């Protein structure tokens, strides 16, 4: 495992850094390539386009970060889209016709609720010992039902000031607030976790549960924590959805679960757990948002978007599996560990 075991400062070793972040760099190059293509077919690419890209990618980016947190801990949460829908409809219903302060209060409560909901998923998976995929797939029905109970059909809204959080621009038109929000929230929450003990525990549990257990890592709390963190970012995603669409939609979340998994796979997070970071998935979310937009611009049938997204995932993962130089050991780790781990 390439996970840092010791936290001693070490001399910068460029080949090693390059190797460790090769996948993220690859995702960046993909983004740049797509961007160059975009510029070539749409020469007057301006602040408006940047803004719509950021606003469009924001929910998916948060969703991808949410899934990353869960997957790094060795789980998977297929109910993230449904939780986003719950956050979205709660926001749309209770912010409607209220002022900015109330909206912020609702947003705060939604974030807490999301964290609890995610933790609840994790707790169920932990307690029942039913595989994560099954628990969260079933929970996606539960959360989807909750969203429909709160808001049976699309509607609601939020004060304009709240929407400005994502769509406005504080400094220059080239730097939309959404981007600042995304980077700010993720950095504020993720960096302390990653640098702290809990982040180390998260990676340890994700990469080898048994080994982590023997090293004295508390498996249960760590797993629940990773799900709770996922729930928090899912709630962020739901709020971002609110900001970008301006409406609550109980069914909007469903596509985000699958797109989120696509984004983390493109972003270099191993579904086997314990490997990857949050930067790759965020960049991948922008790629996945930019590609369908390019299709419309270049006059291709925009309905091909899903086809391209699907092919992109499969091809990139195949390429990743075939390039042993990039990730020499991960390909060996494709099988789930067959030994039963203390859960």
């Amino acid at each position: 495992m390439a996970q840092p075991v010791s936290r001693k400062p070490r001399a910068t070793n460029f080949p090693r850094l390059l190797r460790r972040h090769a996948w993220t760099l690859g995702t960046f190059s993909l983004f740049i390539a797509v961007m160059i293509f975009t510029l070539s077919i749409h020469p007057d690419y301006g602040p408006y386009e940047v803004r719509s890209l950021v606003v469009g990618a924001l929910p998916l980016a948060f969703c991808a970060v949410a899934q990353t947190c869960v997957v790094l801990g060795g789980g998977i949460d297929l109910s993230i889209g449904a939780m986003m829908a719950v956050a979205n409809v709660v926001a749309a219903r209770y912010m409607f016709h209220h002022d900015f302060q109330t909206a912020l209060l609702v947003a705060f409560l939604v974030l807490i609720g999301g964290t609890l909901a995610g933790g609840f998923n994790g707790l169920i998976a932990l307690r029942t010992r039913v595989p994560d995929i099954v628990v969260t797939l079933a929970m996606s029905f539960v959360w989807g039902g909750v969203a429909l109970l709160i808001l049976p059909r699309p509607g609601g809204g939020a004060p304009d000031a709240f929407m400005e959080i994502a769509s406005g621009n504080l400094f220059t038109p080239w730097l939309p607030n959404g981007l600042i929000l995304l980077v700010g929230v993720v950095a504020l929450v993720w960096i302390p976790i990653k640098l702290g003990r809990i982040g180390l525990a998260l990676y340890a549990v994700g990469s080898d549960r048994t080994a982590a257990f023997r090293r004295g890592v508390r498996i249960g709390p760590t797993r629940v924590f990773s799900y709770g963190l996922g729930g928090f970012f899912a709630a962020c995603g739901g709020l971002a959805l609110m900001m970008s669409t301006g409406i609550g939609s109980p069914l909007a979340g469903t596509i985000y679960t699958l797109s989120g998994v696509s984004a983390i796979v493109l972003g270099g997070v191993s579904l086997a757990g314990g490997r990857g970071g949050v930067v790759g998935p965020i960049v991948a979310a922008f790629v996945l948002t930019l590609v369908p937009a390019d299709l419309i611009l270049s006059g291709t049938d925009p309905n091909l978007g899903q086809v391209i997204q699907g092919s992109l995932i499969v091809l990139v993962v195949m390429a990743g599996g075939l390039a042993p130089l990039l990730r020499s050991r991960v390909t060996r780790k494709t099988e789930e560990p067959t030994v039963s781990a203390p859960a």
Partner: protein
Amino acid sequence: MSTPVRGMRSGRWDVLQAQLRERPSLVLVGVLLVLVLVIGVARPGTVGGTWVANTILFAAPLGIVAAGQTLVMLTGGIDLSVAAVMTATAYVAASQSYFGSIRAVLLALAVGLAVGVLNGLGVAIFRVQPLIMTLGTGLVIAGSLLVYSLNVSHQGPPAVPDIVRFIGAGKLLGIIPVSAFLWGALALIVIVGLRQTGYGRLIYAVGDNPVACRLAGVRSWLVLLVTYILCGFLSGVAGLVLVGAINAADLSLGDVYLLPSVAAVVIGGTSIYGGNGGYTGSLLGALILTVLSSLFTLLDAPDPLKQILYGAIVVLLAALYVRTAGDTR
């Protein structure tokens, strides 16, 4: 006096638990009977010959797609493209019916087979994780179907071919569903095939210990490839049976079958990590889930509540299974 009694009780419980562990399907039969009993009590007079026939009719697509999912899960994989394949085969069959039933059915099954081959190539040869591979193909299929539906030349509206309607919704002697025979035959092939044929045993072996299989000279890739092709084919058949039963095709017909197909297999005691389980359990799981949704329909619960209960009960049943039959891993 209390100690020996308690001891005896726990002894009896142990024996019971040991027996349940030995024959986990007994638990499933019990759950199924309890659900039927609840329906009988809640709506007296519902449970009868016609009700059983209709339940089987509606369980058949789920049961058939669960067969494919069982095979894949026994190898330690998962197929998330089954729902998209069901929708695609259903839609293709309906939209091609103008050119003749046989051609429509063959084309539809070809779609299922093609997706199976694609999944199999990715998982077996390129060693892509099954979750990612089937997620990707599912997206590709759903997207292609959308484009196909917009571009298909409309010689009349999509209509379900007669033969498909007969298989999906027909009843022999006015009571026995035709799909029951199809489902029964497929179930028999899968159950016997898993137990008696070399390929069936290899599925368990590959799922249980891929490294040992490789060392023993098993061509694991071939086993995986065939398994995913079979899963694609069975999903295709399930899609045809479904469209026959519903008698209308749209672009999200099969989507609701994704969770049930996985849930039926897991409730049925097949380990999602591979190598453990069988189709008998999945078959009972499919029946349980169908009876469950018919219970919700009878109780006239609002849709969101239905959905919440459905999800919760799936988790409960899976947990129950893990508790009684031991750790399925």
